[in-house]
């Protein structure tokens, strides 16, 4: 056999053995076998002496290339092992950081919604869906907000091209549900609402609301207070105090705005509660008899209460987020905090 052919044979075998080796240990054996002090390639270099003089340069070059090639292949193969077979040596330094896997996070608005719905769910409220794109009837008329009434002004609204609108509050779900179902009704609904407000730290043209309502014989204002107090204590903590203030909503009467004692300062007054000691968290009231008339529920037999709250606001209060835009920017450094 010619010297060159012998080298080619060595090359072929080495390539196969490198690719056949299945771990770092085996690969190391291959390296020693070919490139070690008594290795095959080292031996072959010694054999160059016996090559005819005219063939010597070619043989020398070939042998150098062979050495380089085997070295390269060994390195490549080793890299492959490095990523797959991680532990190649026993490691006794326990102070090295642990290997962490990435954890995914639910968006804080979703988390807030889920927590609130769960609390009402435990009290027997059923979660329902309701459309965002609505008619004037569901968003205004059936909620006792007549055309040309000043109260419509507080519900500035986006209209779409076919004359329908993007609902400005989730109270539309009251009408949707009461049209289909008869009392006893106990429902909770979460979804988006839209109002033409310019975006700043506390305003957005789109935000989330949760609406809840209960209709049955014998439902009273005191039940509304009981249910909301239970909610506030479950969600904000046992120590929280509540305050009901008279207010006006066209779809409830009597209507109430509900404040909770500021859980940051405990009611002493701080930046979060604008030094009032109270935080406004929801609107509520007894369902207006006019609304019952629209859905053909007899107000002389049934009574009910309804409440609505802004999820964004509650989420911001709960986590101390000072800018609503953070919720919609979705910076992962923000998302990972929840």
């Amino acid at each position, binding site marked *: 056999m010619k010297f060159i052919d012998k080298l080619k044979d060595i090359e072929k075998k080495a390539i196969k053995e490198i690719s056949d080796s299945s771990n770092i240990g085996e690969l190391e054996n291959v390296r020693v076998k070919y490139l070690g002090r008594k290795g095959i390639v080292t031996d072959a270099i010694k054999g160059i002496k016996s090559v005819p003089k005219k063939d010597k340069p070619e043989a020398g070059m070939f042998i150098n290339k062979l050495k380089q090639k085997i070295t390269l292949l060994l390195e490549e193969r080793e890299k492959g092992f490095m*990523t797959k077979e991680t532990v190649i040596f026993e490691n006794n330094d326990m102070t090295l950081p642990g290997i962490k896997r990435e954890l995914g996070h639910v968006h804080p608005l979703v988390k807030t919604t889920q927590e609130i719905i769960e609390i009402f769910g435990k009290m027997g409220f059923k979660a329902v869906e309701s459309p965002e794109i609505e008619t004037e009837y569901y968003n205004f008329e059936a909620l006792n907000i007549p055309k040309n009434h000043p109260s419509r002004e507080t519900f500035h609204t986006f209209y779409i091209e076919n004359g329908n609108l993007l609902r400005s509050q989730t109270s539309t779900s009251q009408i949707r549900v009461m049209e289909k179902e008869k009392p006893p009704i106990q429902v909770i609904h979460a979804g988006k609402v839209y109002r033409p407000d310019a975006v700043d730290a506390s305003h957005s043209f789109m935000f989330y609301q949760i609406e809840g309502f209960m209709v049955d014989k014998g439902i009273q204002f005191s039940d509304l207070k009981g249910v909301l107090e239970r909610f506030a204590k479950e969600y904000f903590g046992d120590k929280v105090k509540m305050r009901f203030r008279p207010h*006006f909503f066209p779809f409830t009467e009597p209507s109430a705005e509900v404040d909770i004692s500021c859980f940051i300062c405990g009611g002493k007054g701080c930046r979060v509660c604008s030094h009032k000691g109270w935080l406004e968290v929801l609107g509520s009231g007894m369902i207006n008899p006019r609304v019952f008339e629209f859905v053909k529920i007899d107000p002389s037999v049934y009574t009910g209460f309804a409440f609505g709250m802004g999820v964004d606001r509650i989420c911001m209060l709960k986590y101390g987020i000072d800018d609503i835009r953070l919720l919609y920017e979705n910076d992962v450094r923000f998302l990972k905090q929840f």
Partner: protein
Amino acid sequence: MRVSFDWLKDFLELKIEANKAQSFLTMTGLEITSIADIDGDHVMEIEVTPNRPDCLSVLGIARELSAASGIPIKYPDSVKKNLMKKAGAKGGVKIEILDKHACPRYVGCIMKNVKVEPSPKWLVQRLNAMGVRSVNNVVDITNYVLFELGQPLHAFDLDKLDQKRIVVRRAKKGESIVTIDGITRALNPNVLVIADAVRPVAVAGIMGGKDTEITAETKNILIESACFDPVVIRKACRELGLASESSYRFERGVDQGMIFASSIRAQELVKEIASGRAAGEMSDAGSGIEKEKEITLSLDEVARILGIDISPERIKDIFKKLNLNPIKKKNHIYVTIPSYRQDLSRDIDLIEEIARLYGYDNVPARLPSFTPQKIYQLEKKTVSIENEIRKILCGMGLNEIMTYSLTSRNTVERLGIPLENLVSLKNPMSSQQEVMRPSLLSEMLEVLNWNLNRKNTLLQLFELNKVYIMNKETGQAEEKMHLSIGICGNKPGNWKEKPRDLDFFDLKGIIEILMGSLGAAGYRIEKTTHPSLKENMSTTVNAGGKACGVFGEVKEDVARRFDIKKKVYAAEISLDDLLICANLKKTFTALPKYPSIKRDIAILLDDIIDASVIYDVIKEEARELVKSVDVFDLYKGQQIQEGKKSLAYTIEYRSDERTLNDKEVNDIHKKVQDALTKRLGAQIR
């Protein structure tokens, strides 16, 4: 609405502090949002709800504070004597009302030899507290009465009124007026005006005209005290883009009973401050005063709605404080509603009044008895699949995002998807929010870009949210729940592992785990084309013969239109379609009784042969004995012939009936090898 604490003292003997008054008012429905100190006076900012226009005056607030605190209220004599009055006198200026619906009543009063000069200090201060600049004594008096009694007034220079006539009419097309702010305003028949014999001299209920305004030279004046239809005023405000303290009150409705009394009050002040002389020349045109309404309240209703135990005497007391003249007969209380309380018309309104003054905080809290609700399967299914998806994706390290549903047409355009079924807004605030998005992908790309710009390098995100499509056939907009996934960037390494870029197969793995975990049996991932996704790198997820979504590598030019220079991989799946093939009901499969045997195989074959083809061959050959096929190595490049690739598989063989022996496994494995060689020209290595 602003109110000065000192001014309230004109009506009430206030011995309480401002913050005590604040608490009384806030807890009965007039929320004080702030108190400012102006020249030693406490000026309270009050949120007045739209149902209570009667509270848009110092008197109105005083009435509420009186009812809440029990401090009796005292009216100025001139006001008290003239409430609910209508003058028959027609001796003064000639008033014609041509639109009786738009202007039910107009009282005009002439005052002569008025001295127009700067107002006294107390008047300047009071107006200042309300945030109004002093003009001159006459104008200040009209503003003063507006704030004091809630009745907007206007003073004209009588001598500048042509023929000294007042005509209340719709503006004619082509007419215009220069209002006192110096702006020329084109008018039209939607706008009600006060005119003299020839031209408009004021925009009714909104603003007076420059021509007839009170100046230092004015000698004789006409004071207007009128009422206008709220809708007419609101429309005119919108047409003209103009609003004022007057229009604010007219839009909400003024007190019929106060129109005449306000005129008298203004006359009194003009005499006092501007040495004017009432010529006794008053005209009162328009309808008479409506009789006060009466409402009956059943005492049983109070308990039925509120759940409180309250005595009839206490109720009567509350009604007395509210000036409702209650009379109790058997189980009912009859009340008379004063003219300023137009919001009270039904018994429920009275119940609210009781609750308000009884104190919401004094109503006991109780928990009602709850009735289990019927849960609809479909609703339950939608909610559960959403939560299941969240669990699976968060478990794989993806973060959930929430984005706006409104976007710009341009953003949708950048995705390269068709625009014809967009739901567009009629009254967008800006072009940034002019359409409802038809896809979640645009916002996903925006969020990826936002994060890349902030050097957040590992991005694995998803969103569960609605998309909106205009159904051309029904003309209705449809809302559909979608899932989007976006991944981009680099998985950082650590002292054991090397960093690497996320790629298509990371996304594919996410989709496969998702589909598997949702129990979507028999779904297939197939090649497709999509306007936003790169050719040869776009796939559909097909289930039950229907594509429920797409995923792949986002086209470079699409990504670049969102300012992303990196490779981005994205998916969008319809939840409705996913629901059809998903099955969240888990059923137990018995664990294998017999052991499995694994065999490795390395093959060299043409690069163009897809892995799925190889998989199918292995499956077809070994049938149910193959339990799993894993690719553990793929190699192309040096030492391998061009156009070829080297693949290594681990195949797991197992029978459900018996333990396979070595020979059996070797035979099957041989069959697999032969098939790969024969059918795919593979070379076993």
